[in-house]
C-alpha cells in the first residue's frame, strides 16, 4: 500500500512537472515607461511584435527586428522600404494613426504592440483585450525620436544596434556642422503654403543641415498654414518641397505669385528626394534629409558625399 502511494505521488509530481519541460525557460520581464508616461511590463526579447505606426516599423527594421514583426500598420503597400528589405506585405493592415485593429491583432497573440501617441487613450484597453503589453511612441521631434528609438531598443533587447545607429547618424551629421555659411530655407509640406515651425521635427532637419528655418517664429507643433504674403516676407535663400508636396519644381518656378521670391528668381527651388522613405518624417533615415539639404545649400558638401552615406546607411542598417 505504502509502495503504491509512493508510486502514485511520483506519477502525480511527474504529471505536474512535465509541461514545464516542453516550454522555453522563462525569459524574465522588463518594466519600461513609454512616451505616454505609462508604466509597461513586457517579456524580455519579444518574438511576435505588432507595430501600428510606420515610424516604429521603420525603427524596428533598422534595429534588425524584421523577423519578429508579425503585424504592421495599414497601407503597407505604399511604403517602398518594406519590399526592399523583404518584409512580407501581407502582415499589413493592423491600424493607422487614427485607429487600431484590436480584434485582428488579438488573433496574432503578440508579445508586444507598438502604437502611435495619437492612440494613447486606447492603449490600456487594447492591452487588456489582446493580453499583450502596449508601448506608445511619440517620435514627433528630434529628442523624442531618439527617446522612441531607445525605448524600442530596450523593449527588443537591441540596445547595441541602437547605439551603433545613433553613433552613425551623429557622426554623419557632425560632418556638415563645420560648414561656414548658414543659408535660409523654407520647407513646404503637403502643400506649398504649409510649413513646419520651430517645434516640428522638420525644423531640426533643417538645422542639422546647417541651414536656418525661415518659419522658426511659428510655434505650432503641427504643420502650419501660411499665406503667399508670409512666404514672400520670409524671402528664403532656398525653397524646398517635401516629398509629400504635390507640386513640381517647375510649377513653383512658374507661379506668378512667387515671382518676387529670391529663391525663385535664382532657381533655388528643389524637391526632396525619397529613397525608400520620406526623409522629412522622423524615421531613422531622416538624417539623410539633412545631408541632402546640406548638399543642395552648401557647395562645400558635395552630392556624392550624401549619396555615398545614403547607400552605406541602408546597406548597414536595413541590409539593402
Amino acid at each position, binding site marked *: 500500500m505504502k509502495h503504491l502511494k509512493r508510486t502514485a505521488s511520483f506519477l502525480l509530481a511527474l504529471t505536474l512537472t512535465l509541461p514545464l519541460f516542453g516550454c522555453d525557460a522563462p525569459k524574465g520581464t522588463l518594466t519600461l515607461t513609454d512616451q505616454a508616461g505609462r508604466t509597461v511590463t513586457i517579456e524580455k526579447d519579444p518574438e511576435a511584435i505588432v507595430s501600428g505606426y510606420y515610424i516604429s516599423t521603420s525603427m524596428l527594421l533598422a534595429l534588425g527586428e524584421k523577423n519578429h514583426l508579425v503585424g504592421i500598420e495599414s497601407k503597407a503597400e505604399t511604403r517602398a522600404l518594406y519590399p526592399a528589405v523583404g518584409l512580407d506585405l501581407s502582415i499589413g493592415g493592423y491600424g493607422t*494613426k487614427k485607429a487600431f485593429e484590436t480584434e485582428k491583432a488579438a488573433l496574432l497573440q503578440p508579445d508586444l504592440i507598438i502604437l502611435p501617441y495619437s492612440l494613447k487613450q486606447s492603449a490600456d484597453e487594447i492591452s487588456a483585450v489582446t493580453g499583450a503589453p502596449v508601448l506608445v511612441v511619440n517620435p514627433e521631434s528630434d529628442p523624442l525620436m531618439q527617446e522612441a528609438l531607445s525605448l524600442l531598443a530596450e523593449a527588443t533587447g537591441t540596445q547595441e544596434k541602437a547605439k551603433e545607429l545613433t553613433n552613425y547618424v551623429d557622426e554623419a551629421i557632425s560632418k556638415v556642422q563645420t560648414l561656414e555659411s548658414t543659408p535660409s530655407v523654407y520647407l513646404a509640406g503637403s502643400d506649398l503654403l504649409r510649413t513646419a515651425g520651430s517645434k516640428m521635427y522638420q525644423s531640426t532637419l533643417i538645422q542639422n543641415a546647417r541651414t536656418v528655418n525661415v518659419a522658426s517664429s511659428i510655434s505650432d507643433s503641427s504643420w502650419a*498654414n501660411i499665406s*503667399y504674403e*508670409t512666404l*514672400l*516676407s520670409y524671402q528664403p535663400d532656398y525653397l524646398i518641397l517635401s516629398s509629400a508636396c504635390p507640386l513640381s519644381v517647375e510649377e513653383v518656378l512658374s507661379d506668378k*505669385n512667387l515671382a518676387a521670391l529670391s529663391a525663385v528668381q535664382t532657381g533655388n527651388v528643389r524637391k526632396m528626394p525619397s529613397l525608400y522613405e520620406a526623409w522629412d518624417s522622423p524615421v531613422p533615415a531622416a538624417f539623410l534629409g539633412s545631408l541632402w539639404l546640406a548638399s543642395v545649400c552648401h557647395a562645400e558638401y558635395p552630392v556624392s558625399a550624401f549619396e555615398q552615406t545614403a547607400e552605406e546607411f541602408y546597406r548597414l542598417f536595413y541590409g539593402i
Partner: protein
Amino acid sequence: MKARSFLIAALCLLAVTISLFVGKYPLTLEGIFSDPVQQSVFLRLRLPRTLVALFGGFALGLAGYVFQTIFHNDLASPDVVGVSSGASVGAAFAILFLGSSALLITCSAFLGAVLVLFLTLFLSSLQKNRGKATIVLAGIAVHALAQTALTALKLEADPERELASIEYWLMGSLNDVTLTTLPSLLPVVLLVSALLFALYRHVLVLTLDDTEATLLGARVKGTRWGLLLLATLLVASVISVTGLVSFISLLAAHVAKLLVRRHNRTLFLLSGLAGGILLLFADCLTRLTAAELPVSVFTSILGAPALLVLLGRKQHE
C-alpha cells in the same frame, strides 16, 4: 436711418483700407506705385484678398437675411438646408481623390453644396405638406447624411496630409486667395446679389404668413424655392473658395436690423455690408497671428458674444 447707413458705409471703407495695408509683407502707399515687388504683392495678393473678404462677407450676409426671412426664424442660416455639409463633402472628396488642386477643390465644394440643396428640395417635395418645416426637416436629414459621408472620407484620409488639408478647409481661410481666385467668385456673387435685389419684393412677401402671401397673389412655394436656390448659390460660391466661415450669415442680418427696423432694400443692403465688414476685420486679425489662424476662429470670437448681446437685447425689448 441715413446717418446709420452712412456709419456702416464709413465703417466698410475703413475696413477695406485697413485690410489693404495689414499683412505679413510690409506695403507703403509710395512703394505700391514705385516698387515692383510691392506692386505685385498689392495687386496679386492683398487687393484680391480684400475683395474676396468684402464680397464674400457681403454674399454671406445677404444669404443669411434671405434664410432668416424665408424661415421666419432669426437663427436660420444656410446650414438649414445642409449647404455647408455638402460643400465640405465636395471639398474632402477633391482633396482625397482629385489631387488637392485648389481649382478642383473649389469646383467640387460648389457642386457638393448645390447637390445637397437639390437633394433637400427633392426630399421635401415628396411630402404632401411642402411648407417651411418640411424643408427644414429634409435639410436636417441631408445634413446628417452628408456628415456621415464626411466622416467616412476623413477615416480614409492620410492623417498627416489629406486629413490635415480637410480639417484646415473646414476651418475656413483666405490665405490661398490670389488674383486667379477672383473670376471664380466675383461674377457669381455680383450676378446673384443683383438678382436678389431685383427680386427683393418677393423676399418681402415671404415675411408674411403663407396664407396672407397667397391671398396677395404670391406663389409661395415657387418663390421660396427660387430664393433658396439663389441664396444657396451665393453661399456655395463663397465657401467653395474660402472653406467654411462660421457666424457671418447668422450675425450680419442681426447687426443690420439694429440700425434699420423695417424690412426694406436698405436693410437688405446693410445685411450684406455688415457681413463684408465682419469678414474683413476677422481676416485682418488672422494676418496678425504668426501662423495665420483660420478665419472662423475670429468670426466666432467676434460673432458669438455679439450674437448673445443681440439676443439679450431682443429679449429685453
